[in-house]
């Protein structure tokens, strides 16, 4: 029993963190591109901005549970199977990267337009402005955003238990729901709640210590 819970916890942690990592690898450049190519951005590009915006909006509007089953063929293609924790990473990343892009976009837009202008007046390139002005200046907000993304993916990963994903969600559904074991159900819920609180606390803490505006 304890073994089961522990391996479920590890699986959930693995699914969540790996998905967060991939979601950022794809979502971070898209989010930054959305800001840079916006009409009021540093390199306005209507076409690029519109295409990225549409992709993000479409993926954001598909409910996760639908997306989960809809991408099964793709998951099979990439992972060889659609069952288990590793396979669940595929739909999780597809669901999360547009969310990451929007979160990044929101954070990057917080950066004072004047600071970007000052950097332009110093002769900074677009790349330098993104990597050396926008990202460092909105770091506290990025950290907060990462915590929100992690919590969301954690929730999605639990949901994936219903269609053969692994982890705490699968245990809660298979043991707690189908076998009507309310004790297991409560334990799973408790662990998920603790994990959410942990990520939230972590995000808030690091966001605060990294922010030099409040001292």
């Amino acid at each position, binding site marked *: 029993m304890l073994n089961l819970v522990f391996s479920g916890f590890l699986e959930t942690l693995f699914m969540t963190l790996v998905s967060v990592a991939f979601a950022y690898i794809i979502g971070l450049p898209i989010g930054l591109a959305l800001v840079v190519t916006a009409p009021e951005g540093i390199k306005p590009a209507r076409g690029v901005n519109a295409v990225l915006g549409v992709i993000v909006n479409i993926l954001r509007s598909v409910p996760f549970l639908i997306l989960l089953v809809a991408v099964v063929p793709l998951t099979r293609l990439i992972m060889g199977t659609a069952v288990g924790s590793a396979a669940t990473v595929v739909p999780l990343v597809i669901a999360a990267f547009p969310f990451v892009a929007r979160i990044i976009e929101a954070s990057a837009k917080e950066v*004072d337009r*004047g*600071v970007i*202008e*000052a*950097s*332009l*007046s*110093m*002769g*900074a*390139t677009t790349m*330098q402005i993104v990597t*050396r*002005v926008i990202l*460092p*200046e909105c*770091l506290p907000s990025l950290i907060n955003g990462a915590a929100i993304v992690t919590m969301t993916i954690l929730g999605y990963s639990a949901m994936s238990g219903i269609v053969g994903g692994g982890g705490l969600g699968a245990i809660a559904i298979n043991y707690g729901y189908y076998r009507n074991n309310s004790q297991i159900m409560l334990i799973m819920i408790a662990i998920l709640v603790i994990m959410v609180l942990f990520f939230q606390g972590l995000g808030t803490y690091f966001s605060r210590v*990294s*922010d*030099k*505006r*409040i*001292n």
Partner: protein
Amino acid sequence: MQFRETIISIKNLTKTFGTGHAAVTALSDVSLDIEKGEIFGVIGLSGAGKSTLVRCINLLEKPTYGSVIVNGQDLTTLSDAKLRLARRDIGMIFQGFNLLMQKTAQDNVAFPLTLCGIGKKESRKKALELLSLVGLKDKAKSWPAQLSGGQMQRVAIARALATDPSVLLCDEATSALDPATTDSILELLRDINRRLGVTIVVITHDMRVIEQICSRVAIISDSKVAEVGYSADVFRKPKTDAARSLVLPPGERLTGLKSGGELIRLAFDGSTSDRPVIAEMVLKFGQPVNIVYADTRVIEGRIYGHTIIRLPDDRDISIKMQSWLTEQEVSFTKED
């Protein structure tokens, strides 16, 4: 008159925002020459286009028409890469300071240097020298949030000077500061101008800023240059309505005064104000005048200012007083 070299030449500059019916003209056919080593002021009321003008000098705003020549280079014809290089020679400071809030004062000043690819150690060393130039060496490790407005603007000035520019643009740089801090920042700008020979372009809506540090001034009104001249001349004898409304802000305009004798405005240009002109006149004609408004200040050791007096009701004496003033070479204008 010593030989002066033009460092910034703005030719037929026009800037329109938007297109079609929604188009707004911010600048219309503006031409200006700014000389090397001077402190040049651009003044105008809000929305007159002065901010757009200064932002066109380093092409933060792309002119719709016309050219901007800085150090012999027409910036409007440069490629992006060449423009970035040219911008290193044009420092800029802003009303909102625009410091990087997540970097220390020292790293803010070092920032433009690291953008050019200069190593961190060398950049920081130069940043420290610049911070001591602006009197903030002890704040090198402070975060911008820990500094006062005046201190933040000093850091911004140090940062703008990091790449040894030949031009420093100041876009309403003192507008967010209190009067005492404004004075100290202006003093610093003057000091930098004298010590480093940097040409400074000051954009402001505050005539006091012009009086304190600018040798020449352009008055921008309705997207056009209304008047250009030496600050003292413009201050003493504003030729256009735009200039008059800036020299004497609307709040200080004398309206609704009960009728009586004629109101005249005396302008002191620094040559007569050590003489008690009004007192001499009163003694000579044995008739009192009423001083209804007075505003004088010391600019570079000489007294400049305006005094509005009401002449006696007696038309005869009033006319005699006016001709006496003309004899004494005191310039004055009649107030409506």
